[in-house]
């Protein structure tokens, strides 16, 4: 039972990341009709917003400490971050410690801006082009973006830990009546799950309860008609791209304490997020979220020992197997609309 | 007994009764028009005839054989060809290639690689394609890419693609929709020419009364998913029920 609950938690947690990425992907596809292979790169850029902020906050000046020597036997140069110098060690180190949560504030404008530039500068010119061209140009963009990051930050993962206060794990078991130490779960993963629910809720609420959202939803359903109503749908769609980029970016920022970010993390998620979107149904936001959590949970259960002993290798292929079964039994994914992306 | 018999066909979409108990008989070698106000169920009926939709109730038989449950390509092989509201042609191919494809399809529609077919066969097919293009006055445009044709020419091409299969029944879905008066008249002339030069049955769904009364030998009026009247054009013209149906539409 405890193992079961733990795997559900794992699944929800994995699913949060899948759902957030798939949500942004579907927003872009649903509103703009563009297949964005650079979406994983947006996730990665979000993560590197956190790295960047951490580096900025840790910017240091050097002082020579004669009492110690470095690896070559020379006097050691000690780095002191400016923030520590300015605000004193206590507050200064606390600021550096909280760089990942702070990066959320930093990442929102950055990601919206990146989204704007991408849409106005590149994607805009591809609305009328075939999906294959969209895939190719955004794939090219994804490579360029990740190589730029690699050029500046290297290929190695960069540790960006959660604030100390939020590190460690919480003993859920004791709360719900299990023995101590049977069901423990890291604070940050629970935060990630809650955070994703807030973002998902925010996006749905935004689309549901604002006039802007209503126009966008109408545009997703029938772009030409809305255009005929004299509404400047294009500008709204640009903003939508910015929002989608921000969702992907925030997913990336929050992911950094779970796994240290590296330049190819976007590509690692790309294929998976497309599978999620398609299983959910191209163009369906609830479908994307549902499929994200569903696949997350299935993946978690497939990696348990009893699953792999029953079917060796099932943990390697479960996502793809599910995708195949879903697509063969439900032609347009779980919640897809008819006629989307079938030509 | 007509070549096409529709008996008690009904179709629901969720809560909407699109068709309810439609009976229709199209006699061989006639031009039969189906008219009705918007939302009368004309297109739904047509889609039931070609296998795109399967009706909930009733039967559709063509030359005594049921078409229900067959796929579009199988129904076509029975001898039913369809012309769409917006011409459906192979836009990336040349006019000539567009016509060759239905020639290859022949009547049985079986899969063939057609890569190294005998020369004799191919000569035959090309000759057939040439003749039909000549028939619809498209021969000089044979090497144009189909997508670059004018709307009227696309319609001609689509007709040619249907006719080359020598169908027994030609279904036309608003063949003059969105056309200028001159193009409409050309299309009427073309259809008359087609009718005059071969044994063919036509079923036309049409909005434009000018087209209907120029061509049709019998007319069925559909309203709210059920046939209102079926009669000759002369009798339909002054029929009170028809007026009511159309006036009702304009008042709404």
């Amino acid at each position: 039972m405890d193992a079961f609950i733990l795997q559900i938690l794992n699944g929800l947690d994995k699913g949060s990341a899948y759902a957030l990425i798939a949500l942004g992907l579907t927003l872009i596809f649903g509103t703009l009709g563009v297949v964005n292979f650079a979406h994983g790169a947006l996730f990665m850029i979000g993560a590197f917003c956190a790295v960047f902020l951490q580096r900025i906050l840790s910017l240091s000046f050097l002082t020579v400490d004669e009492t110690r020597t470095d690896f070559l036997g020379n006097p050691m140069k000690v780095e002191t971050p400016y923030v520590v110098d300015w605000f004193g060690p206590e507050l200064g180190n606390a600021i550096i410690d909280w760089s990942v949560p702070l990066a959320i504030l930093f990442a929102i404008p950055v990601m919206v801006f990146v989204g704007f530039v991408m849409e106005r500068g590149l994607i805009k010119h591809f609305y009328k082009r075939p999906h294959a061209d969209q895939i190719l140009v955004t794939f090219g963009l994804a490579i360029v973006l990740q190589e730029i990051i690699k050029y500046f930050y290297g290929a190695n993962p960069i540790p960006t830990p959660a604030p100390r206060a939020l590190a460690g794990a919480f003993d859920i078991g004791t709360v719900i009546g299990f023995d101590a130490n049977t069901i423990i779960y890291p604070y940050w993963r629970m935060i990630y799950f809650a955070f994703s629910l807030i973002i998902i809720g925010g996006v749905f609420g935004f689309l549901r309860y604002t006039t802007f959202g209503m126009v966008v939803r109408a545009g997703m359903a029938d772009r030409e008609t809305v255009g005929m109503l004299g509404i400047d749908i294009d500008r709204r769609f640009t903003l939508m791209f910015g929002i989608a980029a921000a969702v992907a970016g925030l997913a990336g920022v929050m992911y950094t304490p779970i796994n240290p970010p590296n330049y190819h993390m976007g590509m690692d998620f790309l294929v998976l997020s497309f599978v999620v979107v398609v299983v959910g149904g191209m163009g369906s936001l609830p479908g994307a979220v549902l499929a994200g959590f569903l696949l997350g949970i299935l993946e978690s259960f497939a990696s348990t020992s009893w699953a792999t002993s029953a079917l060796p290798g099932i943990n390697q292929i479960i996502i793809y197997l599910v995708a195949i079964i879903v697509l063969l039994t439900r032609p347009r994914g779980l919640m897809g609309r008819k006629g989307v992306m079938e030509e | 007994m007509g070549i096409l018999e529709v008996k008690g066909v009904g179709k629901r979409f969720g809560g909407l009764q699109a068709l309810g108990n439609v009976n229709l008989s199209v006699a061989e070698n006639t031009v039969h028009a189906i008219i009705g106000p918007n939302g009368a169920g004309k297109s739904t009926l047509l889609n039931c005839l070609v296998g795109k939709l399967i009706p909930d109730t009733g039967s559709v038989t063509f030359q005594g054989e049921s078409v229900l449950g067959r796929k579009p390509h199988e129904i076509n092989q029975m001898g039913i060809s369809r012309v769409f509201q917006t011409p459906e042609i192979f836009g990336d191919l040349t006019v000539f290639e567009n016509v060759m494809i239905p020639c290859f399809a022949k009547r049985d529609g079986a899969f063939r690689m057609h890569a190294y077919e005998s020369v004799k066969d191919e000569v035959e097919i090309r000759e057939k394609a040439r003749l039909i293009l000549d028939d619809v006055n498209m021969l000089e445009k044979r090497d144009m890419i189909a997508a670059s044709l004018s709307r009227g020419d696309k319609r001609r091409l689509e007709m040619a693609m249907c006719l080359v299969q020598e169908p027994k029944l030609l279904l036309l879905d608003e063949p003059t929709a969105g056309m200028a008066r001159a193009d409409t008249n050309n299309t009427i002339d073309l259809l008359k020419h087609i009718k005059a030069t071969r044994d063919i049955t036509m079923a036309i769904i049409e909005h434009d009364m000018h087209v209907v009364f120029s061509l049709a030998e019998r007319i069925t009026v559909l309203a709210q998913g059920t046939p209102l009247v079926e009669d000759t054009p002369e009798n339909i013209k002054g029929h009170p029920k028809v007026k009511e149906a159309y006036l009702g539409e304009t008042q709404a």
Partner: protein
Amino acid sequence: MSKNILTRRGLMRTGAAAGAGLAMPTIFTGQVWSAAHSGYTNAPQGSTVTLGFNVPQTGPYADEGADELLAQQLAVEHLNGEGDGGCLNTFSSKALKGNGILGKKVQYVTGDTQTKSDAARASAKSMIEKDGAIMINGGSSSGVAVAVQGLCQEAGVIFMAGLTHANDTTGKDRKANGFRHFFNAYMSGAALAPVLAKEMGSDRRAYHLTADYNWGWTQEESIVASTEALGWETVNTVKTPLASTDFSSYITPVLNSGADVLVLNHYGGNMVNSLSNAIQFDLLSKQVNGKDFKIVVPLYSELMAAGAGENIKGVLGSMNYNWQLDNEGSKQFVKSFGEKYGKPPSNSAQTCYAQVLLYADACERAGTFNPCGVAEALEGFEFDGLGNGKTLYRAEDHQCFKDVLVVRGAENPTSAYDTLEIVEITPVDQVMYAPDHPMFGGAEAKLGECNPGA
């Protein structure tokens, strides 16, 4: 970026022999004219000799590849008598004079393995066929090492492996033209076991997470064998897909498995993530069976340590080399490398550096570049002064035998470079094994015949 004034000006490819329409058949291409006259592939002509450095430059191991490349460039510099001479000063063999190899100036070409066996073979072939490379050095995974080693055997050039830790490289896939300086999974197990027993006792219950591919399996096999020999119990061994990024669903079953040690048979990004995930679940602060929970990472590298950050604190593992090693060769190498590049060398950099010097030295001692002569000079060669202490290149399987380091993540590092501290230097005798050991292909594993190519 650093550069070297002398080599960059001088680096001009040797002209091919002039003469019109001279055609001659060979098995493997390259500088065929000389092959026909000297009896081996890519015999150097003129006054230079070309080495091929095949390292990952793209993909997740690009930084490791970059480090290897720096070390190889440094080695070329030292061979050509530039810089401070590095380990030429401390090397026990005095055959190298700093005038190139056999009087020929050393130049090099580079290729990108992409850490894929296909791509690695393509770039190695390109260096052999197009650039006339006489040997191939480097790499950072066992799949690549075995694939390129096979190619070099067919082509008739020497392969000096870089970072490759699987038993197979000098086990069932050993080749007469291939040589490995790096240690292997068996040695990791043999070196770690006594330290584990000392630190954790001999009645531990271990849970293994293993990367689901060849290297992971041999690593797991070796550790399981050596820890069970101590009296440890293996609770479970779970294979994780290589493509995994989130290991939470593999970590949670550990919580209630009754295990009190977690062994992560992962490398690179897998290890960084699985270790980070394990720490998130607070495993290290748990008490199981009345003992403190421990985590072991059998194969460490500096870059992985950097990627995992503070999570490595207190975690034990093994290494081939660490710059903190206190011997003459090591000190000299760290000084040369550090002064040139501003950071201490990683253990894969040290291996690649040592391999270049060992190759050059073997050529000098053999008096030829002929791979068969070089191989003979390397076989059974005993040396010191390259950083690892006394080392033997065993003739039977072309594996180096030397002391193995057991290291631990430091609790209070003073800089980015001493995050790992040496716990123990396991003497070479403890990690020795017979060439026909069952983990190394048993009696069937054969080097085969040396192949000079032409």
